[in-house]
């Protein structure tokens, strides 16, 4: 297990370099000149312009630019944004907000998805199951931005149960509504996945044997069906944590959440390479770490899997 974890951490290095290189290149190759965007299209003296180019290393060829970026990265210097802020500081402010949002969304989809999935699975074909299936299909079919605006309007503006937008502080309470919107589609997937898995496992021979031992129905479900059914669900949740962090752009936009998604969106528009690469790099690390945790949870849930 230790060797396995270590190996996976070492794998992070090439994955990180590969991802940042790709993103760096994409931003580099994007048409449009970042310096003229910076000045807002107003004319600049050649002296100022070349000074700015030199400051952001934009006068260097691609490989030199990327090499300098990596060199600075080792000393945790992520570069400066065009507005003169350290990218490190921008990230430090935005990342916790998005992380909070994503974790809340993940918790909502996991708890409710598994709970309703188990009930639907155990009552396959009954009214509850059919209703839940149809509702989840509707949720999956409607795009997030539609759901987001509708919930914002109904819950936030009409019913006034929650604030329709998020303040700069982005407290836990303010993030509940955005987290529900962000987690809703995945909630439907978790529900369906759990349901299918439960239906499959409840027919297993060992479940019948567990019942034959004289165990109560509740114990059979919780101890013998649920744990075995969670294996595919956990895989999905792990991979989803990464997508939630990266996919928060739309939700963050609707609710004006000062998170990574907002930061990334604005940086892409401005062609601000250091910010884009840093944000994507962090997301890559989150993604890889989430998958590592999934693999370790696997071994916990299923003792047949041994990492040697």
């Amino acid at each position, binding site marked *: 297990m230790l*060797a396995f974890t270590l190996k996976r951490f070492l794998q992070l290095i090439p994955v990180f370099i590969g991802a940042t290189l790709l993103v760096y290149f994409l931003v580099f190759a994007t048409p449009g000149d970042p310096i003229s965007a910076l000045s807002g299209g107003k004319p600049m003296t050649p002296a100022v312009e070349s000074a700015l180019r030199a400051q952001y290393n934009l006068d260097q060829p691609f490989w030199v630019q990327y090499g300098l970026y990596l060199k600075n990265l080792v000393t945790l210097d992520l570069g400066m944004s065009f507005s003169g802020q350290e990218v490190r500081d921008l990230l430090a402010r935005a990342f916790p907000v998005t992380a909070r949002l994503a974790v809340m969304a993940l918790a909502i989809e996991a708890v409710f998805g598994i709970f309703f999935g188990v009930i639907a699975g155990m009552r396959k074909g009954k009214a509850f199951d059919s209703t839940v299936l149809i509702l989840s299909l509707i949720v999956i079919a409607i795009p997030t931005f539609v759901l987001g605006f509708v919930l914002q309007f109904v819950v936030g503006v009409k019913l006034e149960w929650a604030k329709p937008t998020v303040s700069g502080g982005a407290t836990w309470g303010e993030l509940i509504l955005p987290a529900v919107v962000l987690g809703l589609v995945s909630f439907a997937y978790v529900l369906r996945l759990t349901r299918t898995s439960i239906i499959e496992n409840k027919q*297993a*021979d*060992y*479940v*019948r*044997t*567990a*019942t*034959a*031992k*004289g*165990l*109560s*129905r509740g*114990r059979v479900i919780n*101890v*013998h069906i649920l*744990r*075995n059914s969670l294996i595919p669900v956990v895989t999905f949740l792990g991979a989803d944590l990464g997508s939630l962090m990266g996919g928060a752009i739309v939700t963050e936009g609707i609710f004006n959440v000062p998170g990574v998604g907002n930061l990334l969106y604005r940086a892409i528009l401005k062609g601000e390479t250091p910010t884009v690469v840093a944000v994507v790099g962090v997301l890559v690390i989150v993604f890889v770490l989430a998958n590592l945790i999934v693999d370790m949870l696997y071994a916990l*849930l*299923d*003792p*047949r899997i*041994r990492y*040697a």
Partner: protein
Amino acid sequence: MVQNSEPKPLLEIKDLAITFSTPDGPVNAVRNANLTVMPGETVAIVGESGSGKSTTALAAIGLLPSNGEVSAGQILFDGEDISKASEKRFVELRGNHIGMVPQDPMSNLNPVWKIGFQVKETLKANGLAGSNPKQRVAQVLADAGLPDPETRMNQYPHEFSGGMRQRALIAIGLACRPRLLIADEPTSALDVTVQQQILDHLDTMTSELGTAVLLITHDLGLAAERAEKVIVMYKGQVVESGPALELLRNPQHPYTKRLINSAPSLAAQRGDKHEMAVDEVVAEKSEPLLKISNLTKVFDIRKGFGRKEKFTAVDKVSFEIPKGTTTAVVGESGSGKSTIAQMVLNLLDATSGDIVFDGQAIGKLSERELFKYRRRVQPIFQDPYGSLDPMYSIYRTIEEPLRIHGIGNQASREKKVKELLGQVSMPASTMHRFPNELSGGQRQRIAIARALALQPEMIVCDEAVSALDVLVQAQVLELLDELQRELGLTYLFITHDLAVVRQIADNVCVMEHGKLVEQGTVDEIFENAKSDYTRNLLSAIPGASLI
């Protein structure tokens, strides 16, 4: 344990009918079934799959599938009608009044919990864990004959062999000292010697505890040997019942007679043999088609942190198969017999030694020569549910090898498929159907037709009839026999079932732990076995004491 001085039945099933609701309407799985189990008595229900024997037993413990229900009759347990009992009442009864030992030890233990946990929760659920549950668990496991229970209880099912898992399941079934134990084919997935040990142990335990046993089995020989009373079920009805020996010696119903005739264990004990295709004299004279010499296969087993261990699965095995004969390779699981089959089929490379087919060493074949070799040697595998592609129609399944080897055109291939289906006694209309529409025996016929499509000279049958019911098994063996006679086929027949060997083989190789311990003609082996191991295997065939 049980103090029943008056002869009151423990379980009495009266006019029981069980109905399953299916998309095609209700199906009567059991009709008018009657049976009585007295306290401490062992009663066996015998029948083929689909006869309703398991369904009847499951109804007695309230474990019918959700689409099944008792539609008529009574199930009296100790005088109480439980045929319509609530789930709550069944939770009370299960475990400490009615226990169960299920069929397949591989799938009946939850893979994610330790063995000890699974025993402990049984004791706890029935309030019998006591003040020191760990000690109780160890005791229960030890009683079931599991060696070193303190260590074993901390292991997971996948660390156990099949026999050990079945012992754990017996421990669970008997942990709460039930008055009735339902044993649903408790050993049919196990090797014959392990089966004997386990059944002996079950006998001892149940007679010590005074437990009555309802034994479900498809093997009449086994039923007659282990039970006082035998009930024969056929298509959901009890066709015959009575004291075991009487029923065996003087069967009344034609179905019982058929069962007795085709039960391999009984046939083997009688020394029955199908008339073999090839005259024994011819067999001895004919050229060896396959010659195996010093065949060895060593596997590397990963032990973690890059450590490896060598495991010799097949150890310097040599034998020959004369053209047009059947050689059976017998042994328990882990003896290396299937590894030999895979090397002969060139699905695995040999570590050393030679396999020479018709004068050609198959280890040294080029890609093209190997392709030609595959045309001459075809396999039939054990599990007809797993070896046919569920998404392929029967036509496509049988036609595929012809297409791959570029034989004929569309029209001639279709004709050939029809011909092959005829050869295995299946109607030509079968070719538009899919595997899930066929029974196990029919699927195995399709697998045989597929194997015959390329007109091979040799067929490797890897446990080809082990998954089938006795009657179907007899039919398939007969078919293989006929085909050998007609087409002069050579069979390499891999099996763990010595009883089947007697029916089909000319020559026998007995394997243990990768080594060939004995070989000879089938009569030599059965009548004059040299090694202790072979004699053990032979004496473990059920029904030995009956004939």
